[in-house]
């Protein structure tokens, strides 16, 4: 295996992951705390003779992605919370037209302009659809710089495989922190090659093609929505990703994603040293949500504790998955605040 270890920032790891995955085109607009992404891409993509445009707005960026994706190219945009809100219309259209692309959200505190520190307040928006209509995004939640690289790479494959946008739901902390990352340079040779026999490119030697999300024919849109549902079911079946740690004998299972999970991980380690039987469930895909894994664990543990940097969003999905089998407690930190281990340790002890 060819590999090299590099110290890099989370946001740069996203860029490297995208470039390795063969990202053909990047379109973005500056917003803190993801500014390293457009800045890095403006150099790298041009050097690689790929497409880079700093768009005039987030709306333009996501619609440039629409155009590039409609040509069968691997396209990406990145932004942070308020900017992602602006992209929602375009995301709905991409889903309706079944165009694959990668969207990166390096979350900041909200609502509104909020602040620029890391937050997890966009869980609902990402997993329940911030745009209009029935649609789902494949939502991946990295908790390390290494995962910023790996999951971005994976996102391109998943997007192509299912003709659906994939969203990297990161946050300002993972985006800004630096870690040594071992990059497996073999990985780029293994990327999924899918024949895009729907893409536009001029009708030479074939019938003209049409990409649209407007379906006005009688019953046509209902049929299309059921087709999307089948696709979403397929994604659920095949692509649910979740890490569990020390849950076999756990009395309390903590559920956390992204940077919260990273902090919970060390809290779990410390609690175990104090002989507290606690384990960690970390959804890597927030959609599809690891319902079954959580449901199975709910039959073994006494309680769940959901830890997230918001007012309680994923906790709703955990409660649905647990379906009353055991109590689900919540520890939240909204507005861009970050947990320390002690707060989590204390909360576990309080609910024991």
């Amino acid at each position, binding site marked *: 295996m060819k590999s090299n270890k590099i110290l890099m920032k989370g946001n740069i790891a996203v860029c490297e992951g995208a470039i390795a995955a063969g990202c053909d085109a990047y379109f973005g607009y500056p917003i803190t705390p993801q500014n390293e992404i457009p800045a890095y891409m403006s150099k790298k993509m041009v050097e690689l003779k790929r*497409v880079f445009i700093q768009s005039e707005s987030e709306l333009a960026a996501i619609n440039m992605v629409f155009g590039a*994706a409609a040509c069968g190219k691997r*396209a990406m945009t990145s932004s942070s919370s308020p900017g992602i809100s602006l992209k929602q219309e375009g995301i709905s259209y991409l889903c309706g*037209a079944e165009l694959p692309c990668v969207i990166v959200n390096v979350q900041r505190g909200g609502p509104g302009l909020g602040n620029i520190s890391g937050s997890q307040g966009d869980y609902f928006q990402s997993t329940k659809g911030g745009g209009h209509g029935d649609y789902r995004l494949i939502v991946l939640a990295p908790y390390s710089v290494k995962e910023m690289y790996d999951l971005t790479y994976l996102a391109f494959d998943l997007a192509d495989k299912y003709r659906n946008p994939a969203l990297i739901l990161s946050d300002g902390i993972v985006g800004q922190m630096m870690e040594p990352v071992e990059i497996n340079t073999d990985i780029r040779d293994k990327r999924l090659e899918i024949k895009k026999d729907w893409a*536009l490119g*001029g*009708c030479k030697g074939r019938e003209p093609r049409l990409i*649209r999300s407007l379906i006005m024919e009688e019953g046509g849109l209902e049929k299309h929505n059921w087709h999307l549902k089948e696709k979403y079911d397929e994604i659920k079946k095949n692509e649910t990703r979740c890490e569990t740690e020390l849950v076999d004998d756990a009395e309390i299972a903590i559920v956390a994603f992204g940077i919260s999970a990273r902090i919970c991980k060390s809290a779990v380690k410390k609690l175990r040293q104090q002989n507290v039987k606690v384990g960690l469930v970390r959804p890597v895909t927030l959609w599809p949500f690891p319902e079954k894994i959580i449901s199975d664990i709910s039959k073994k543990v006494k309680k769940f504790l959901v830890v997230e940097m918001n007012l309680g969003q994923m906790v709703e999905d955990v409660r649905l998955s647990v379906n009353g089998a055991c109590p689900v407690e919540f520890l939240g930190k909204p507005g861009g605040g970050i947990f320390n281990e002690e707060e989590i340790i204390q909360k576990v002890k309080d609910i024991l």
Partner: protein
Amino acid sequence: MNKIFGRCYSLKEIKHSYCPGCGHGIIHRLVAEVIDELDIREKTIGIAPVGCAVFAYYYWNFDVTEASHGRPPAVATGIKRCLPDKVVFTYQGDGDLAAIGTAEIIHAANRGENITTIFVNNATYGMTGGQMAPTTILGQKTATTPFGRDAKREGHPIRVCELLSSLDGACYLERVSVSNPKNVLKAKKAIKKAFENQLNNRGFSLVEVLSQCPTDWQMTPVESVKWVDEVLSKTFPLGVVKSQIKEHE
């Protein structure tokens, strides 16, 4: 016997949905004729707008996509930057281009995107039922200007070609109309030039086509073409607004 007139290959043999007297049918035909004549059908990608012309993708016989309201220039940018050898054009109405999509058209023009825009200006919102457009002229009554457009209340009509003419990236801007055969021929010439500019990598070209909307104007088709000639073109004078095409080219 020589065949001197027939159906364009770039138009499908489908009955279109436009009202009697509407200009879209003529403009579609002109675009298709130009694409046939330039022999670029197999490398053309069109972007259909929202509004009455949304179904243009059923009528054109080449690759087409749609865009959300106002965003065709961004979609076109994404396509053209990825496939610079293809011919990419947007077909947009006045609400699409001059209201909700003002930012996109200005910046696409300013970047000098090597695309072609056909901008259909009928001074009203057609599909939604004849409301005020950015191009509605002063005094014009619409569903949302029942007393006639008043500059103090609703602002002035936007002249898109003139607005874009200050941008260095805009290569060619011309306003035409399809109100009579003579103007139709001029319109075709302009549309052809706009596509040729793209083939010659000259950057952004836009042809603004004054078009009649008898239904929403509550006129007969004959009255509507007369209104274009006698009234609408006073606010929107026909002709080349900007051309950076060098004479010897």
